[in-house]
């Protein structure tokens, strides 16, 4: 219907479109520059990079894949970390989605005493910087025997406030009468959730899946505290341990950093459609 010929408007619109497009292209280029430059840097001798900073110029004479060759040679723990990260991310994402959806369903579909108080607690968690409770949480983790184990990382985050919040918003769009129909059919309350609601939530699972996965893959401070042994470290922690003035590890550092970005970007590109669909279908209605 916007194609209705309206001479003046069409011209105006194409002019603004071009301007807009230019603006967006410019922004996109700015956003991509760091990716581009760190990738170039990964092809150059790393110590030089640390000393001089990164640039944009391509100098084929000093560029090579030596760093990557070293990375893939298996002499470093890089891929142990890589595997740890994949494992923790996978477990954490699946568990968090499941538990959060479960909880969100309770919030969205029922009226019960203390609901508002509890939901305020969800918001409350969102506002507690993790760093504040780090010290006691650390002591607790030790008491629970979860140090240096992936459960110490996963469990505190298993009922994530953001996914709960998001799923609740998503579910509040589903009419409760729909549930009553299922009840009449003899479904138990949990049956309703697992058989009827969970499949309906697929798009929002995709959206939150990327969110949770991304946070888990990149999570830094807490895993740094919980994990100890170097063969249990995750990728960000492992990479960070290479940034030290007391060792020569920069070769692995920069190309390792670049390589660590690849899986998560691929995941995003694959699920991009579902992600955007899920995000946009859910919406934050407040």
């Amino acid at each position, binding site marked *: 219907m916007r194609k209705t010929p309206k001479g003046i408007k069409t011209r105006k619109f194409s002019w603004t479109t071009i301007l807009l497009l230019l603006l967006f292209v410019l922004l996109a280029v700015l956003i991509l520059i760091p990716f581009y430059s760190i990738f170039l840097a990964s092809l150059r001798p790393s110590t030089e990079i640390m000393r001089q900073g*990164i640039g944009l110029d391509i100098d084929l004479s000093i560029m090579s894949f030596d760093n990557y060759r070293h990375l893939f040679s298996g002499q470093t723990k890089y891929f142990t970390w890589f595997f740890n990260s994949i494992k923790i991310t996978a477990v954490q994402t699946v568990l968090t989605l499941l538990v959060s959806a479960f909880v969100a369903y309770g919030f969205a579909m*029922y009226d019960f005493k203390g*609901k508002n108080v*509890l939901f305020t607690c969800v918001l409350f968690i969102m506002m*507690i910087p993790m760093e504040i409770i780090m010290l*006691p949480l650390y002591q607790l983790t030790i008491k629970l025997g979860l140090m240096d184990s992936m459960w110490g990382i996963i469990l505190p985050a298993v009922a994530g406030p953001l996914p709960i919040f998001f799923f609740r918003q998503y579910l509040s769009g589903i009419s409760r009468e729909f549930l009553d129909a299922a009840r009449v059919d003899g479904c138990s309350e949990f049956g309703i959730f697992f058989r009827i609601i969970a499949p309906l939530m697929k798009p929002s699972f995709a959206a939150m899946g990327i969110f949770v996965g991304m946070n888990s893959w*990149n999570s*830094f401070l807490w895993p740094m505290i919980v994990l100890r042994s170097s063969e249990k470290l995750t990728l960000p922690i492992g990479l960070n341990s290479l940034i030290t003035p007391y060792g020569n590890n920069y070769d692995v550092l*920069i190309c390792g950093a670049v390589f660590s970005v690849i899986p998560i970007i691929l995941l995003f590109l694959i699920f991009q459609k579902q992600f955007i669909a899920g995000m946009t279908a859910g*919406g934050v209605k407040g």
Partner: protein
Amino acid sequence: MGLKKNAAAVTKEPKAAAPKPGKERTNSLLYSQKLAPYLFVAPFVLVFAIFYIYPVISSIIMSFQEVIPGQTHFIGLTNYKRLFNGDLGQAVLNSVIYTLLSCAVVVPVPMLLAVFLNSKKMVGKNIFRSVFFLPALVSIVVAGLTFRLIFGEMPTALLNNVLSNFGIKPIKWLGGPAQWTTFFALLVLCCWRWTGVNIMYYLAGLQNISVELYESAEIDGANAWQQFRSITVPLLKPTFTYVLTISIYGGLAMFLESYMLFNGNRSPGGAGLTIVGYLYRLGWEQANFGFGCAVGICLLVATLTINLVQLKISGFFKKE
């Protein structure tokens, strides 16, 4: 898939182990609508109690103690009194400036970008959405390293190199004599990482605005700006509130950005010292757990107050 989920349900609620698919209500517990919600939110309550309430309480207790191995004892308000003569002032100032600056950019700008991206006239929406979102996928370790090298003080580092084309001398961006350069670097990093995420939130919000509203507005002769002002802005308010809330929270709790940019919790002149950075220094680096907890409690009170006031003003609670 379904099976798996059922299995998970079993572990959550052992009594769900034998739900007969038939219509007989053998297990009233399973079918009780009164009990069900409590069972659903139980995992949250557990996690909340164990990993949040307990630590917050022990944090409060520790903030009144001097915590040293084997000799922990109560020292009353000493930790809180000491707050006022240390570097906390600078840390708070840095955090507040950073929060204000980042909110000024990361809240409104993505809104505009999202509106454009949502417009039917826009070309290549999906590409731009993806590109803008990419930085959020990058670990702060990698992002910090990259930006540290971009903002390097040597003339060969990217930014100085570019500026030298305009005849500008190399600037010491990170912790240089002028404070604004540090904030600038932090702000660029923050915008780079969060713009795309916030665009997604706004896009999500925009989907909830019915297209018909715009169509009827167009029929009434409203131009794009009028439509934006009288339809988009008011209807996007909940999303705006949400984005503002998380941005304030994120700004006040900022630590890792500075930690990675400065290669540790050490910035010259404390230019990158934030509240959490201060807490980290006291609690972890100087083993002053009690003092660290006191800083934490103050930050907690501050974030809660600001966010609650902000939510109150924006009428968030009325909708509950």
